[in-house]
Protein backbone atom coordinates (compact mmCIF):
# COMPACT_ATOMS: atom_id res chain seq x y z
CA UNK A 1 0.00 0.00 0.00
CA UNK A 2 1.34 3.37 -0.93
CA UNK A 3 2.10 5.91 1.73
CA UNK A 4 -0.20 8.49 0.16
CA UNK A 5 -3.26 6.23 0.56
CA UNK A 6 -2.32 5.51 4.18
CA UNK A 7 -1.87 9.18 5.05
CA UNK A 8 -5.17 10.15 3.41
CA UNK A 9 -7.04 7.41 5.29
CA UNK A 10 -5.26 8.19 8.55
CA UNK A 11 -6.16 11.88 8.18
CA UNK A 12 -9.80 10.96 7.53
CA UNK A 13 -9.80 8.69 10.60
CA UNK A 14 -8.32 11.38 12.83
CA UNK A 15 -10.84 13.93 11.53
CA UNK A 16 -13.71 11.54 12.31
CA UNK A 17 -12.27 10.94 15.79
CA UNK A 18 -12.04 14.71 16.33
CA UNK A 19 -15.68 14.93 15.25
CA UNK A 20 -16.58 12.51 18.05
CA UNK A 21 -15.16 14.75 20.76
CA UNK A 22 -16.06 18.17 19.30
CA UNK A 23 -19.68 17.87 18.05
CA UNK A 24 -22.12 19.24 20.64
CA UNK A 25 -24.92 16.90 19.52
CA UNK A 26 -24.32 13.36 20.91
CA UNK A 27 -26.04 11.78 17.90
CA UNK A 28 -23.46 13.42 15.61
CA UNK A 29 -20.71 12.16 17.93
CA UNK A 30 -22.09 8.63 17.67
CA UNK A 31 -22.24 8.80 13.86
CA UNK A 32 -18.66 10.10 13.70
CA UNK A 33 -17.65 7.21 15.97
CA UNK A 34 -19.32 4.75 13.57
CA UNK A 35 -17.28 6.30 10.75
CA UNK A 36 -14.08 5.95 12.82
CA UNK A 37 -14.86 2.30 13.57
CA UNK A 38 -15.44 1.56 9.88
CA UNK A 39 -12.13 3.22 8.98
CA UNK A 40 -10.41 1.08 11.62
CA UNK A 41 -11.99 -2.03 10.07
CA UNK A 42 -10.38 -1.05 6.76
CA UNK A 43 -7.02 -0.68 8.53
CA UNK A 44 -7.51 -4.16 10.04
CA UNK A 45 -8.02 -5.60 6.54
CA UNK A 46 -4.84 -3.85 5.38
CA UNK A 47 -3.05 -5.46 8.36
CA UNK A 48 -4.29 -8.94 7.31
CA UNK A 49 -6.64 -9.22 10.30
CA UNK A 50 -9.69 -10.29 8.30
CA UNK A 51 -11.73 -11.90 11.07
CA UNK A 52 -11.05 -8.99 13.43
CA UNK A 53 -12.21 -6.57 10.72
CA UNK A 54 -15.47 -8.49 10.28
CA UNK A 55 -15.99 -8.57 14.06
CA UNK A 56 -15.23 -4.86 14.24
CA UNK A 57 -18.08 -4.07 11.83
CA UNK A 58 -20.55 -6.60 13.27
CA UNK A 59 -19.90 -6.12 16.98
CA UNK A 60 -18.74 -2.51 17.24
CA UNK A 61 -20.29 -0.61 14.35
CA UNK A 62 -23.33 -2.86 14.50
CA UNK A 63 -24.25 -3.90 18.02
CA UNK A 64 -22.43 -1.51 20.37
CA UNK A 65 -23.16 1.66 18.39
CA UNK A 66 -26.83 0.73 17.99
CA UNK A 67 -26.91 0.39 21.79
CA UNK A 68 -25.37 3.87 22.09
CA UNK A 69 -27.83 5.45 19.64
CA UNK A 70 -30.70 3.66 21.35
CA UNK A 71 -29.73 5.10 24.75
CA UNK A 72 -29.22 8.59 23.27
CA UNK A 73 -32.71 8.57 21.77
CA UNK A 74 -34.15 7.05 24.95
CA UNK A 75 -32.64 9.85 27.05
CA UNK A 76 -33.80 12.48 24.51
CA UNK A 77 -30.57 14.48 24.79
CA UNK A 78 -31.23 16.89 21.94
CA UNK A 79 -30.13 20.44 22.66
CA UNK A 80 -28.24 19.50 25.81
CA UNK A 81 -25.62 22.20 26.52
CA UNK A 82 -22.18 20.71 26.85
CA UNK A 83 -19.76 23.36 28.05
CA UNK A 84 -16.57 22.40 29.90
CA UNK A 85 -16.19 23.55 33.49
CA UNK A 86 -13.64 26.17 32.42
CA UNK A 87 -13.20 27.45 28.85
CA UNK A 88 -9.44 27.06 29.23
CA UNK A 89 -9.81 23.39 30.14
CA UNK A 90 -10.69 22.44 26.56
CA UNK A 91 -7.64 24.21 25.12
CA UNK A 92 -5.31 22.80 27.76
CA UNK A 93 -6.63 19.24 27.27
CA UNK A 94 -6.28 19.45 23.49
CA UNK A 95 -2.75 20.86 23.80
CA UNK A 96 -1.66 18.15 26.24
CA UNK A 97 -3.17 15.40 24.06
CA UNK A 98 -1.54 16.77 20.89
CA UNK A 99 1.83 17.04 22.65
CA UNK A 100 1.65 13.46 23.94
CA UNK A 101 0.57 12.07 20.56
CA UNK A 102 3.36 13.96 18.79
CA UNK A 103 5.85 12.68 21.36
CA UNK A 104 4.78 9.06 20.82
CA UNK A 105 4.96 9.54 17.04
CA UNK A 106 8.49 10.95 17.25
CA UNK A 107 9.67 8.07 19.47
CA UNK A 108 8.09 5.52 17.11
CA UNK A 109 9.59 7.03 13.97
CA UNK A 110 13.03 7.02 15.57
CA UNK A 111 12.78 3.28 16.33
CA UNK A 112 11.09 1.88 13.25
CA UNK A 113 12.64 -1.59 13.36
CA UNK A 114 11.39 -2.46 16.85
CA UNK A 115 8.02 -3.80 15.73
CA UNK A 116 9.40 -6.25 13.18
CA UNK A 117 8.12 -4.69 9.97
CA UNK A 118 9.16 -7.52 7.67
CA UNK A 119 7.79 -10.69 9.25
CA UNK A 120 6.85 -13.54 6.93
CA UNK A 121 3.19 -14.40 7.40
CA UNK A 122 1.98 -17.98 7.68
CA UNK A 123 -0.68 -19.30 5.31
CA UNK A 124 -4.14 -18.20 6.40
CA UNK A 125 -2.83 -15.51 8.79
CA UNK A 126 -5.65 -13.51 10.31
CA UNK A 127 -8.37 -15.90 9.19
CA UNK A 128 -10.96 -17.64 11.35
CA UNK A 129 -9.01 -20.91 11.47
CA UNK A 130 -5.75 -19.33 12.59
CA UNK A 131 -7.41 -17.19 15.27
CA UNK A 132 -9.59 -20.03 16.55
CA UNK A 133 -6.61 -22.37 16.85
CA UNK A 134 -4.81 -19.95 19.19
CA UNK A 135 -8.01 -18.95 20.99
CA UNK A 136 -9.14 -22.50 21.81
CA UNK A 137 -5.73 -23.85 22.79
CA UNK A 138 -3.43 -21.30 24.45
CA UNK A 139 -6.22 -18.96 25.59
CA UNK A 140 -8.96 -21.47 26.44
CA UNK A 141 -9.13 -20.47 30.13
CA UNK A 142 -9.40 -16.80 29.21
CA UNK A 143 -12.11 -17.65 26.68
CA UNK A 144 -14.15 -19.49 29.31
CA UNK A 145 -13.69 -16.64 31.78
CA UNK A 146 -14.96 -14.29 29.07
CA UNK A 147 -18.23 -16.22 28.99
CA UNK A 148 -18.52 -15.63 32.73
CA UNK A 149 -17.84 -11.93 32.16
CA UNK A 150 -20.62 -11.71 29.57
CA UNK A 151 -23.05 -13.52 31.87
CA UNK A 152 -22.25 -11.12 34.73
CA UNK A 153 -22.59 -8.15 32.36
CA UNK A 154 -26.00 -9.30 31.12
CA UNK A 155 -27.32 -9.85 34.65
CA UNK A 156 -25.79 -6.56 35.83
CA UNK A 157 -27.28 -4.59 32.94
CA UNK A 158 -30.74 -6.05 33.54
CA UNK A 159 -30.57 -5.35 37.28
CA UNK A 160 -29.31 -1.79 36.79
CA UNK A 161 -31.74 -0.85 34.03
CA UNK A 162 -34.91 -2.22 35.56
CA UNK A 163 -37.25 0.04 37.46
CA UNK A 164 -37.59 -0.40 41.18
CA UNK A 165 -41.26 -1.40 41.53
CA UNK A 166 -41.50 -0.34 45.18
CA UNK A 167 -40.21 3.25 44.91
CA UNK A 168 -41.61 4.17 41.50
CA UNK A 169 -45.08 2.68 41.63
CA UNK A 170 -46.91 6.06 41.99
CA UNK A 171 -45.10 7.38 38.92
CA UNK A 172 -45.92 4.22 37.01
CA UNK A 173 -49.61 4.56 37.84
CA UNK A 174 -49.87 8.25 36.94
CA UNK A 175 -47.90 8.63 33.73
CA UNK A 176 -45.93 5.62 32.67
CA UNK A 177 -48.81 3.30 31.83
CA UNK A 178 -50.14 5.54 29.09
Amino acid at each position, binding site marked *: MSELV*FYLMAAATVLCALGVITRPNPVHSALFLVMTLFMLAVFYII*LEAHLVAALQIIVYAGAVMVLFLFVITLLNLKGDPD*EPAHPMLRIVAYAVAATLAAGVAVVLMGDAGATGAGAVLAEGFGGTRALARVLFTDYLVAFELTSMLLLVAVVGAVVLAQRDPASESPLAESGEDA
Partner: protein
Amino acid sequence: MVGPTHFLALSSALFFIGAAGVATRRNIVVIFMSVELMLNAANLAFVAVARGLGTMEGQVIVFFVMTLAAAEAAVGLAVILAMFRNRQTVDAGEISLLKW
Protein backbone atom coordinates in the same frame (compact mmCIF):
# COMPACT_ATOMS: atom_id res chain seq x y z
CA MET B 1 6.69 1.66 2.73
CA VAL B 2 3.98 1.70 5.37
CA GLY B 3 4.98 -0.41 8.36
CA PRO B 4 3.50 -1.14 11.78
CA THR B 5 5.14 2.05 13.05
CA HIS B 6 2.73 4.18 11.01
CA PHE B 7 -0.25 2.32 12.42
CA LEU B 8 1.11 2.67 15.95
CA ALA B 9 1.45 6.43 15.45
CA LEU B 10 -2.16 6.59 14.21
CA SER B 11 -3.18 4.47 17.19
CA SER B 12 -1.56 6.87 19.65
CA ALA B 13 -3.22 9.84 17.91
CA LEU B 14 -6.66 8.21 18.26
CA PHE B 15 -5.92 7.27 21.87
CA PHE B 16 -5.04 10.82 22.88
CA ILE B 17 -8.03 12.22 20.98
CA GLY B 18 -10.17 9.90 23.09
CA ALA B 19 -8.36 11.02 26.25
CA ALA B 20 -8.98 14.67 25.35
CA GLY B 21 -12.65 13.83 24.85
CA VAL B 22 -12.85 12.26 28.31
CA ALA B 23 -11.18 15.34 29.81
CA THR B 24 -13.26 18.02 28.05
CA ARG B 25 -16.77 16.67 27.53
CA ARG B 26 -19.44 16.80 30.22
CA ASN B 27 -22.10 14.70 28.54
CA ILE B 28 -21.48 11.29 30.08
CA VAL B 29 -22.63 9.43 26.95
CA VAL B 30 -19.99 11.24 24.88
CA ILE B 31 -17.38 10.53 27.58
CA PHE B 32 -18.33 6.88 27.18
CA MET B 33 -17.88 7.12 23.40
CA SER B 34 -14.42 8.63 23.95
CA VAL B 35 -13.52 5.62 26.11
CA GLU B 36 -14.64 3.35 23.25
CA LEU B 37 -12.38 5.37 20.95
CA MET B 38 -9.43 4.75 23.30
CA LEU B 39 -10.18 1.02 23.40
CA ASN B 40 -10.24 0.94 19.60
CA ALA B 41 -6.93 2.77 19.43
CA ALA B 42 -5.42 0.07 21.65
CA ASN B 43 -6.94 -2.58 19.36
CA LEU B 44 -5.29 -0.99 16.34
CA ALA B 45 -1.92 -1.11 18.12
CA PHE B 46 -2.41 -4.82 18.91
CA VAL B 47 -3.34 -5.66 15.32
CA ALA B 48 -0.43 -3.63 13.93
CA VAL B 49 2.11 -5.40 16.16
CA ALA B 50 0.54 -8.80 15.40
CA ARG B 51 1.02 -8.06 11.69
CA GLY B 52 4.57 -6.87 12.27
CA LEU B 53 5.62 -9.93 14.28
CA GLY B 54 3.56 -12.40 12.22
CA THR B 55 1.86 -13.89 15.32
CA MET B 56 -1.85 -14.37 16.02
CA GLU B 57 -1.71 -13.51 19.74
CA GLY B 58 -2.32 -9.82 19.16
CA GLN B 59 -5.53 -10.55 17.26
CA VAL B 60 -6.71 -12.88 20.03
CA ILE B 61 -6.23 -10.04 22.51
CA VAL B 62 -8.31 -7.79 20.23
CA PHE B 63 -11.04 -10.43 20.34
CA PHE B 64 -11.03 -10.26 24.14
CA VAL B 65 -10.97 -6.45 24.17
CA MET B 66 -14.01 -6.38 21.88
CA THR B 67 -15.88 -8.74 24.22
CA LEU B 68 -14.90 -6.56 27.17
CA ALA B 69 -16.03 -3.41 25.35
CA ALA B 70 -19.40 -4.94 24.54
CA ALA B 71 -19.91 -5.95 28.19
CA GLU B 72 -18.71 -2.54 29.34
CA ALA B 73 -21.11 -0.76 26.97
CA ALA B 74 -24.08 -2.82 28.19
CA VAL B 75 -23.34 -2.23 31.88
CA GLY B 76 -22.22 1.38 31.44
CA LEU B 77 -25.27 2.40 29.46
CA ALA B 78 -27.48 0.68 32.04
CA VAL B 79 -25.73 2.75 34.74
CA ILE B 80 -26.31 5.92 32.68
CA LEU B 81 -29.99 5.02 32.29
CA ALA B 82 -30.39 4.40 36.03
CA MET B 83 -28.58 7.66 36.79
CA PHE B 84 -30.73 9.63 34.34
CA ARG B 85 -33.84 8.13 35.91
CA ASN B 86 -32.78 9.30 39.37
CA ARG B 87 -31.12 12.65 38.59
CA GLN B 88 -32.66 13.69 35.23
CA THR B 89 -29.23 14.66 33.92
CA VAL B 90 -26.31 13.24 31.95
CA ASP B 91 -23.95 16.05 32.95
CA ALA B 92 -20.87 14.50 34.55
CA GLY B 93 -20.34 17.70 36.54
CA GLU B 94 -23.70 17.29 38.26
CA ILE B 95 -22.91 13.82 39.53
CA SER B 96 -20.67 14.79 42.43
CA LEU B 97 -21.88 12.64 45.31
CA LEU B 98 -18.53 10.87 45.61
CA LYS B 99 -16.54 14.02 44.96
CA TRP B 100 -14.38 15.12 47.84
